[in-house]
């Protein structure tokens, strides 16, 4: 049962983008939220993630300004490479799952 639900809390929750990391050395099963007011490009979200959570997604994901091929990112269950990669639009309430194969058992 949800207790102490108030409109302000709801508004704050709805601003959150959920980020989950799988298979990334040092960050496997890591999850955190980023608060945004309006839709932003994924490249912008990477910067906000570092400001708000100290997780440097740019350091993890990017090489020469592009997402490294070994990462597989899903935005609300859909492949981000089909949505423009760094240009993909991320909205409040979205879920991003960032995957990398651990070792291939």
């Amino acid at each position, binding site marked *: 049962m949800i207790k102490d639900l108030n409109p302000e809390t709801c508004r704050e929750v709805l601003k959150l983008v959920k980020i*989950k990391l799988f*298979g990334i050395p040092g960050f496997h*099963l890591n999850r955190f939220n980023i608060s945004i007011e309006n839709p932003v490009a994924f490249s912008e979200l990477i910067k906000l993630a570092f400001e708000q959570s100290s997780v440097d997604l740019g350091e993890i994901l990017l090489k020469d300004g592009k997402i490294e091929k070994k990462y597989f990112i*899903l935005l609300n269950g859909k*492949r981000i490479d089909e949505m423009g990669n760094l240009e993909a639009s991320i909205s409040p309430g979205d879920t991003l799952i960032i995957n990398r*194969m*651990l*070792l*291939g*058992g």
Partner: protein
Amino acid sequence: MAIKGYGKQLRIFLNNKETRVEELDEKIMRDFLGGVGYGARVLYDELEKGIDPLGEDNKLLFATGPLTGNNMPGGGSIEICFKSPLTGGWGESRSGGNFGPDLRKTGFDFVIFEGKSEKPVYLYITDETVEFRAAEHLLGLTIEEKTGKIKEELADPRISTMCIGPAGEKQVLYSTIMCEGRAAGRAGAGAVMGSKNLLAIAVRGNKKVEITEPERFSSAVRSTMKVIRESPDSAGFKEHGTTGDIPGCDSMGDWPTKNWQSNSWGKGEVLYEHFHAKNLVRPNDCYTGCPVGCGRIIKVDDGKFKTPVHEGGEYESISAFTAFLLNEDMDCAVHCTYLCNQLGVDTISAGGAIAFAIECYENGLLSKEDTDGIELKWGDPDILPGLIKKIAGREGFGNLLAEGVKKAAERIGGNSGEYAIHTKGMEGPAHDPRSGKALAVTYGTASRGMCHIHPLEGMLYDSGKVDFGLIPFGLEDPENCDRWDEEGKGRAVKILQDALVLPDVAGNCKFMMYCGMTLADFSEIISSLTGWNLSVEEILKTGERVLNLQRLFNLREGFGKSDDILPKRVTEVPRFGLYSEEERCGIKDFEKMLAEYYQARGWTEAGSIEEGKLKELGLEG
């Protein structure tokens, strides 16, 4: 004369319970090192073409290698080589655990079983002595029960055992030989052991091999261990095991789902989270001294799939009882893998066979009359434990599935062959070549069929962008290739295979190479151990030699280009999931990739080996 770094070979004649201790041939050891390399040499030389894999003429070789040992990187390893009853071709099966190191401590690196015992027996091997023991009382027992009884009878809890379960006794064609909680799972090693009336082997020893340059050797082992221990991949493996790959493989389209109708499901994240939160007890080293520790201790606390604490929960096994079958009940999957391991059934082939059966049933090729009244449905966890027991006991409908999908499809007829996902008769594992095309070539050409060991390097190359330090040896940088490119993958796979077969030749775990162990490390350790001073190039040539000899074994058994194939479904764009509209997923010209691979290998267009290549590798004549 004894070879430094090696022990001896024990040959066991089960017909008359005689044994013979044999010295190893230095030329053969240098050329083939051990494990599946030495196994290929022995079985190619000693088996006649066309023998019955379940007859007395087949041989079962337990093989360690120079890197097998508790102090070695990945040295908890044993390879078993034989003619496969599942495929009719080259058979090998590997298990982790302490058995390999403990076998070496008896003074024997290799044990060859010949003939057939009149009555069920098990063997107890100690420091160069062998004891045959009656085993009728072990018939029908599970792996845990057999292992417990043997340790009790021998009054020594520290012995290591490998034994077959009821499925091996019934010669289920994909039955396993279990090293307690670990499986030599694929190709039907358990059936061959069962056909010989050999139920178990127990070992305990105190011997050590002689090391040529002890200080250099220790230094090489220490530095390799350090690299592995400090690898971030090693840390990831220790923390999340192989099952931690499920979300990643699902998202990258590397998770065969619903009998390969798709390469992704979208449930991987949720399923793994359940596993991690509810089933995982703790990580586990499969053998004493492992620098990685990818094993898991798992359980199901309560409910209809309640399962005791046990070693298990591997990526392949869990995938076979979730995605293959659209089963969303992780507790059920854990329970099913436990049942398979206790009964001695290969989890991958069992999951594949059940998926095949469900699809046949769905399409009217099987009815309730055929299935002993069981309604086969996707995603129904309740039918799975019963089906596993039927397969293990060859009871009713289980007797058909115990033959594997290739033979089962031949018996069912109609278009059931479309649903039988295999290469060379071996059911496909839980990685999908629609995630990256190198995997298509490795599946099509691997010596034992569509297995989960030798093709993995293709997937790691394409999707993981791992080069294994092979760029100086001609491998194209994976960062320069798209995973869905087809051109160049045949050439890449040739180099990847030659290098990545080496752990199975040298007698250690392949995951060490995933965690940073290089060809130079192999070279330095083996050279300081034996005094041979093998260069990196020679080591790589050994891998090539071994794979070509396994190819010769298969060619002699009648395999050829027509067996280097992928099931049609696996080449098609997925029917659902994340990649259902991704045309690049589909395999457009497998023939062209195969031709490129053959050319890189020095094979003819028909898939046989050019004379020049045979000479180059010392395999002529």
